[in-house]
């Protein structure tokens, strides 16, 4: 953003001698600024380096795992045959979780920021934040021991009455440890992250614009739609992506809750479920040896790529209307 008249412009208007006094000049930085911005840049570079290292590690470790020769994990399957159902499982479980959690999280965040009385809202925010603190192992225990048993009768009912609907078809699980339960657990796990970020962003919505909406005779919801949600769009998408990132990478809770089969299936209520990649790694790693370990790491690389694609799409959505963003 340094201002300068470039040499080019001088050539275009050679008739103005005073301009010769201001050649393209180096940006001047104060020492404090240089140190600070240098540190900031350095921090960013560290991230790049770590990522590069992780990527190199993943790629290097993955290559031996791609061949199915003597591979205790692949067992004569090609790597693609092996990983596609796993990738499907990851995306499917996370997607369901996000679809369940996103509206609820936005609802809670709005409730806290714009509906609940102030005092109450502060306590509520705190309580929801607490959920983020529950270790995934505990979510796993709770999901497997409490939630699965609780929802199983509903699944049986859905399966019996709405079994014609593809998602609810198949033989209903006797224990409730289905992909829907796993996704419910994931939804509860990502709820706090989404809620907290959405809440912060909603709270930052400018009072000025909220008042503008109200003064036009907007109801509370219309005010939120006009002044709060558009302002918070970027933040909401970011929150959803962070949440999705957590869901995609969640290991222990899914491992403990889900009855996995490594199939590609859209049925939500059966005990034959797809296996998400992290759960598969956790389940197979302790007994894996030789290039089986590399195969597992290669599936991690696939997950990496999947997550990146999801994020890239989200960024694209946010940037499309960047000039209408709320800042200023």
């Amino acid at each position, binding site marked *: 953003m340094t201002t300068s008249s470039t040499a080019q412009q001088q050539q275009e208007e050679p008739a103005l001698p005073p301009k010769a006094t201001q050649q393209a000049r180096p940006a001047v930085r104060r020492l404090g600024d240089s140190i600070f911005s240098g540190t900031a840049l350095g921090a960013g570079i560290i991230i790049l380096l770590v990522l590069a290292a992780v990527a190199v590690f993943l790629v290097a470790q993955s290559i031996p795992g791609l061949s199915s020769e003597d591979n205790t994990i692949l067992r004569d399957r090609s790597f693609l045959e092996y990983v596609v159902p796993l990738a499907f499982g990851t995306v499917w479980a996370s997607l369901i979780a996000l679809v369940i959690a996103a509206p609820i999280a936005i609802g809670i965040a709005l409730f806290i920021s714009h509906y609940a009385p102030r005092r109450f809202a502060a306590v509520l925010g705190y309580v929801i934040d607490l959920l983020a603190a529950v270790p995934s192992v505990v979510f796993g225990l709770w999901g497997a021991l409490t939630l699965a048993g609780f929802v199983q009768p509903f699944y049986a009912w859905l399966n019996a009455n709405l079994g014609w609907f593809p998602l609810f078809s198949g033989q209903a*699980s006797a224990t409730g440890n289905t992909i829907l339960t796993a996704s419910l657990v994931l939804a509860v796990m990502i709820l706090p992250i989404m809620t907290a970020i959405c809440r912060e962003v909603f709270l930052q919505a400018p009072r000025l614009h909220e008042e503008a909406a109200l003064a036009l005779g907007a109801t509370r919801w219309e005010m939120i739609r006009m002044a709060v949600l558009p302002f918070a769009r970027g933040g909401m998408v970011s929150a959803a992506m962070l949440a999705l990132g957590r869901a995609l990478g969640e290991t222990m809770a899914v491992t403990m809750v889900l009855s996995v089969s490594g199939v590609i299936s859209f049925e939500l209520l059966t005990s034959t479920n797809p296996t998400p990649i992290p759960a598969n790694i956790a389940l197979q790693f302790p*007994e894996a040896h030789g290039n089986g370990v590399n195969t597992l790491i290669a599936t991690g690389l696939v997950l990496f790529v999947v997550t990146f694609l999801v994020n890239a799409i989200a960024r694209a959505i946010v940037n499309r209307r960047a000039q209408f963003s709320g800042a200023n």
Partner: protein
Amino acid sequence: ANEGTSGGEAVEGGVTGTIEATGASSQTAAQEAWVAAFLEANPDSDVIYEPTGSGVGRDNFLAGASNFIGSDRAFNEEELAAGGFGSCTTDDIIEIPVYISPVAVIFNIDGVDTLNLDAATIAGLFAGTITNWNDPAIAEQNPDATLPDLAVSPVHRSDASGTQETFTSYLEATAADVWTYEASDEWPIQGGEAAQGTSGVVDRVGGGQGTIGFADASQAGDLGTVAVQVGEEYVPFSPEAAAELVAGATQEEGRGDADLVFDVDPAAAADGAYPIALVSYLIGCTSYEDPEVAATVQAYFSYVASAEGQDAAAENAGSAPINDELRTQIEAAIDLIQVEG
């Protein structure tokens, strides 16, 4: 309160090395008991056992990251031939079957505590050919039980597991007609309930109705258990019955002197022996670079194989103590560890 109190009075003749081990998670409870008692007798030494899983343990042993390991299977001949055990100075290793644990077939049906089943029926239940508990195949063997009209939900392990390998090799060996799959630590059938770990299977079986699964017997708890047909009789699981199985097993030929590996054949189980038992090994080197480590490994292995050690494991992990004959063999093997540099 138990921290920082060690190093009280030095025990006569105690070893002083620190040894680190990784491996089979099945041995966790037993190792806890062994380590606790061993450290009490040898307060200046330290033994750390990390239940990483057998596969990781074997990799660690090859890489030289663990002084000894626990493993649900011994190294196979190929692996032995390849050699290159990073923990050892030579390729001569010691493998001893000191953790023998019956695997119970557990189920959850209201009002039924125990069932008598033959191998074919068990295989049918798990393979999905028997789908209802009122199936005549079950009723025939259990005239006294009131069997409900209830779907069968078989539960297996979702993780790769030695317990699972033990169970599937039992099915493969005894019910080949129904169970047409190879023994494997991974479940060969797609579908069915899958749960992680022994505790996962136990919880899953307990959490459903009409469920059936298999688990380390010590974890069976209040669930119904199956008495398995061997010969003419139905044998309920017990440590003693499981020990009988190993007692009857043949030792694998062509291995080193300290390499005591047994070929357990469930199909050949003697009368009164319980045919499904996990045999898990302690694996170490016969020579170490560090004599202190060698002495400590030797002392630890000796304790594990001793009668007290086996009883401690039985108490804390529900395992089957080895018989005296086997112990003599094992003690001989342990003596092969070279303690003097």
